């Protein structure tokens, strides 16, 4: 009888450890938030080239993450890449209309993200607005091509 109880206790502990392990993986490793999902507002930006940017990439301002890219699609009217971003709702009405969106790379091997730098226009961007001033991703091949053509033209 005692052995059976010990066995039950061992199996219970095993299952509990498995559940706690999943909670650890969810919260600590993948960074899931248990709180209510934050309210967001959406902005869009068109880029000539997005490089390796994908849905889920972060959006940062002054190095601080303020949102995520939710969609990347081809704009069939202008034939460039249309990036949709969800930003913290606290920033709604605080990003000026002449702000710049650039595609940057974190570190040498890091992932690409959208960096926003605020301008000085008194008018602010609202829900669904498009950022006009954008800077495309740095593509190494284009850079080399430019360098080579400059060298040969001299």
């Amino acid at each position: 009888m005692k052995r059976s109880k010990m066995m039950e206790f061992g199996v219970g502990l095993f299952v509990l450890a498995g559940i706690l392990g999943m909670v650890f993986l969810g919260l600590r490793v993948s960074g899931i938030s248990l709180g209510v999902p934050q309210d967001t507002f959406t902005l869009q930006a068109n880029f000539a080239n997005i490089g390796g940017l994908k849905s889920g990439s972060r959006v940062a301002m002054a190095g601080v993450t303020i949102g995520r890219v939710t969609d990347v699609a081809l704009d069939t009217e202008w034939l460039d890449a249309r990036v949709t971003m969800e930003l913290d709702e606290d920033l709604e009405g605080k990003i000026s209309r002449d702000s710049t969106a650039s595609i940057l790379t974190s570190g040498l091997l890091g992932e690409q993200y959208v960096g926003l730098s605020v301008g000085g226009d008194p008018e602010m961007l609202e829900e669904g607005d498009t950022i006009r001033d954008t800077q495309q991703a740095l593509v190494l091949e284009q850079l080399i091509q430019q360098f080579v053509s400059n060298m040969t033209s001299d």
Partner: protein
Amino acid sequence: MIRPIASLGRGTLEALSALGRASMFLAQSAVGIPSREGWHLWLRQMHFIGVMSLAIVLVSGLFIGMVLGLQGYTILVGFGAEDALGQMVALSLLRELAPVVAALLFAGRAGSALTAEIGLMKATEQLTSMEMIGIDPLRRIVAPRLWAGFISMPLLTVGFSVVGIWGGYLVGVQWLGVFDGSYWSNMQSSVAFVDDILNGMLKSVVFGLVVTWIAVFQGYDLIPTSEGISRATTRTVVYSSLAVLGLDFVLTALMFGELG
């Protein structure tokens, strides 16, 4: 000319017949809710298959995590990208190493034991005796072992991943000096709960079912002699390992590749 073609046909028919028998065996033993007494049998098997395998799985997970931390650091530091260590350790473990290595260890420790145990029952005619007194050996002997293996495998994989990530942290952050905040924040920004963690767990569920199925079927279907038991035990480890590695490729292609 006729003989090789005939032997190919015979081989194919035998393989199909074995697959058919194994499928019937799985269907007959997996169905039905265990009775009160059945729960006790199931609990005992969970203890033997899951709890007793925990030590080997956790120790292996710790060492694999530590090796990943060490190897990852020496490679990444050359590019000045040692901050990506957490991301590398977590993704390697969650997507591939934890489900696959835990399943291979599980096949070696629990799978072979299951085959030998059921095989010895068959060789000593305990299974036939049960049938004669009206107890279905599939329900009483096979089903608890099948379900226990099926449930234990994902739990063992979770343990492997957690301990492995901690092992990578121990070597990378505590011993080699990677910044603590970068280790966790890079991991959190690159690991997706559904795409990486749940897909890895799904792999381990499939491996758990396949390994336990192979183990109990080999035990039930063997030639009841000492040589037959030894051959079936070997077959369990070989077939399970090959099945795990082969299925891993298919599941990886479906989940993370461009084929899905």
